[in-house]
């Protein structure tokens, strides 16, 4: 028992009608980095919520031993007290407060009854040093990039004398450099004796960092792999995750033939007056019918901004240059114009600006194309259910019915709803912004397959992605962006990761 810092025995947790965890066994050795992997909905997050007291003792079955003692956490505060800190994918920072205020938020350094700000700043500097982040502690958090914000979350955890640090997909929103930094930091924390559980969908990361890895599937523990024994391999993980062998992560499609240009941009410039600088500069590019065009680049290189400026310009950038749609010059003054013209944009932030979480699946799927289920402005409820069911079935959206609230679905299923909404609008050009962010291998494969089907039915796709493997695996042609400019164009046959990174970091 002394070797394991954490043991979770026979954990079962049931939501109304759904067994999220059944009899899960999860052991973590002291001082190791333990990765928790599994498809979306496999129960990883639920397990961590049980551990951190989000689901209080009594709402689940089974026992938790931490630090050799049985634990009964009734709320998050209890688990923090015991030395367990969890950092969620969606960071929990206060953007309008300074770095030092954030690090000690809820854990204020006090002298008597008052906050000792000088001491707070001093201690913040120590914490920042530990995470190797060189920023002025008085900087506002909103002025920092996502990578640095992530480090501040870790500094915050360290300030609480954490024994077990849990990271839920820490690198999902980071570019490759920031991800590498973060992993390096985790290794150093391991040297200092901090145990770490990391949930990740990026298998390469898992392979590079994990001492052991536990695979969950359908709420059950499938296996725990040990790096020392050489058990952690991509093949082994994927096999255990999906319960079948996936030959290739990217489904093959028959050699496609391209038609005429569907979209053409000439000297396209978008100026953001809030930032006071152009977010896309002098961009000339084209997309042909039946083609998947990848747009690669680092975070903040202007890819999303470019897409939005094309898609009816909802952020009201000042736009110059020409856009041709199927050869005809077009100008959109609202997203509705772009939709009418046959463009669809699936956002990278599905929860933030993609979905109506408090509404059901059917209302989400029809939201961008109510015309398809209405006549003279009056909605045909039955037709709506029928159409929604069509997408639910064809895209394998896992839900009891189309009347299920979207907020209750897993990430992969939410992404499918988001995609289904735009497919229902019947576009000729589909812009996908990070289409597989934060979703599992199985759902990724399904989304790639859907993309291939769409292409063969004559649609064109622009895919913005930070995952180089995905860009290489799915695109016919790749544009690379950096600092708002188009740095190069590559045919995917001749492209590789190095070439793309070289252009992206120019």
């Amino acid at each position: 028992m002394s070797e394991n810092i954490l043991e979770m025995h026979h954990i079962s947790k049931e939501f109304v009608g759904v067994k999220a965890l059944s009899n899960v066994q999860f052991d973590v050795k002291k001082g190791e980095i333990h990765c928790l992997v599994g498809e979306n909905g496999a129960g990883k997050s639920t397990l961590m919520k049980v551990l951190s007291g989000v689901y209080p003792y009594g709402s689940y079955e089974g026992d938790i031993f931490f630090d050799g003692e049985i634990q009964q956490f009734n709320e998050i505060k209890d688990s923090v007290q015991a030395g367990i800190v969890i950092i969620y994918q969606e960071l929990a920072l206060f953007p309008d407060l300074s770095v030092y205020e954030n690090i000690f938020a809820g854990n204020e350094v006090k002298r008597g009854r008052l906050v000792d700000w000088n001491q707070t700043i001093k201690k913040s500097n120590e914490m920042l040093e530990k995470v190797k982040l060189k920023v002025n502690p008085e900087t506002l958090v909103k002025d920092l990039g996502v990578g640095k914000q992530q480090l501040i979350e870790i500094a915050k955890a360290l300030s609480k004398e954490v024994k077990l640090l849990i990271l839920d997909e820490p690198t999902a929103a980071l570019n490759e450099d920031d991800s590498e930094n973060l992993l390096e930091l985790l290794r150093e924390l391991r040297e200092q004796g901090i145990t770490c559980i990391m949930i990740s969908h990026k298998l390469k990361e898992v392979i590079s960092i994990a001492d052991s890895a536990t695979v969950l599937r359908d709420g059950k523990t499938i296996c725990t792999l040990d790096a020392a024994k050489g058990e952690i391999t991509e093949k082994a993980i994927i096999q255990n995750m999906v319960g079948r062998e996936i030959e290739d992560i990217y489904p093959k499609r028959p050699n496609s033939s391209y038609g005429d240009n569907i979209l053409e941009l000439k000297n396209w410039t978008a100026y953001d007056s809030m930032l006071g600088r152009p977010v896309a500069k002098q961009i000339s590019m084209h997309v042909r019918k039946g083609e998947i065009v990848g747009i690669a680049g680092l975070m903040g290189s202007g890819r999303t901004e470019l897409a939005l400026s094309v898609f009816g310009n909802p952020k009201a950038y000042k736009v110059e240059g020409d856009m041709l749609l199927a050869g005809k010059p077009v100008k959109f003054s609202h997203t509705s114009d772009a939709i009418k013209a046959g463009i669809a944009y699936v956002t990278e932030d599905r929860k933030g600006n993609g979905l109506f979480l408090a509404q059901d699946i059917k209302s989400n799927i029809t939201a961008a194309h109510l015309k398809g289920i209405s006549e003279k402005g009056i909605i045909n409820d039955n037709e709506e259910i029928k159409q929604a069911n069509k997408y639910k079935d064809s895209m394998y959206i896992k839900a009891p019915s189309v009347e299920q609230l979207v907020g209750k679905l897993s990430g992969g299923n939410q992404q499918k709803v988001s995609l289904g909404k735009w497919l229902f609008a019947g576009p000729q050009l589909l812009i996908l912004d990070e289409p597989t962010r934060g979703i599992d291998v199985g759902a990724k494969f399904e989304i790639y397959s859907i993309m291939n089907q769409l292409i063969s039915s004559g649609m064109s796709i622009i895919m913005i992605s930070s995952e180089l493997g995905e860009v290489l695996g799915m695109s016919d042609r790749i544009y690379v962006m950096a600092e708002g400019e188009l740095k190069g164009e590559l045919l995917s046959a001749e492209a590789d990761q190095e070439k793309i990174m070289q252009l992206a970091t120019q």
Partner: protein
Amino acid sequence: MQIKQNRDPINSVPQPNLLQETRHLVKENIRDYGMFIALFVIILTFTIMTNGLFMSSRNISNLLDATGYIAVLAVGMTLVIVIRQIDLSVGFAAGFLGAIAAILLTQAGVSVYITIPIILVLGVVLGMVNGLLVAKIGIPSFVATLAGMLVYRGALLQITEKTGTIIVKDTHFNAIGNGFIPSLFQIQGLHVLSLALGLICIILYVSSEISTRRNKVKYQFEVMSKSIFALKLIFISAIIAYITWILAGYNGFSWTVVIMVLVVLIYHFFTTKTVLGRHIYAVGSNPEAAHLSGISVKKITYIVFGSMGMLSALSGILFTSRLQSATTTAGTLFELDAIAAAYVGGVSSAGGVGKVTGAIIGAIVMASLSSGMNLLGVGISYQYMIRGGVLAAAVIFDVMTRRKGA
């Protein structure tokens, strides 16, 4: 109970028995049914405590008439809150527009049939001003409409300054708040046209429910079992019949009730059945996602505030007509009563959730409390406290049931 026969023909799987299905339905829809149950409990309690006086024809008729001008505001306010805004200006906007109506009718001698459209259009204009400030200029609606509230209060005082209370003598206008629909003839003191209207309501309701169900069956969707469906039809029809019967025993349907029912029906139709309604809920649910779905958030904001303005005007007309005069303090605290009714009716300040039918029930709940407590002779100080408690309890109930469902 004969349970075994209750199988639905289109579903081959065995149906749960009637009791189970009812329980399941109530559990699933506890948030929707909660208000009806609360209203039922309130009515029952007051009826027992007043020895039936509460449910007397005269009291119910008065109660509904007194609810009218708040209920129409609550309907509009629900939509305003659904799109995550608030409108504090509606009370004095109603007071101000009511006073203008009085001036047009008395001093300008304009016919009532011209006055009413003018006032309604003016209401839309005032609402649009709020919409402009909120959607175009980006002022928080709380501040923009607070400013409006002060301005309209001042304007009301200004136009009633010389004359004080303006007495309206136009009988047609006053009938809106005090009159009843004509009875064709009376049978044993019962109001026949009202009975006929009630009957028509029931027939319309039953036939629309049956056609909806038939349509669902045609699409092969799941429907509730036949016995439950029949029970539901009988239950709702009985309620409509009972209310009609009670009102027919006094003077029949008042014009206020007719207007109120029409407003609710029209708004219910628009919010549940049309693209516009969908857009309103989409904007409330997630404005950014709505924009990216091709919905103009600005346009929806204009429409919702415009409709709110129009309903403020209607509220002003109802109130002025009911008092048969425009007073210097007309409209005081209407906005808060309307907001309370909307929240009791289940609207959520997080946006995107809330029904028009809920608003009307909320308004009736609040009015029933006042009416019942008045009959019982409860002091005004306690009345405020109890109404405050009910408002808090309604929102607590709402939050609890939502958490349970999450």
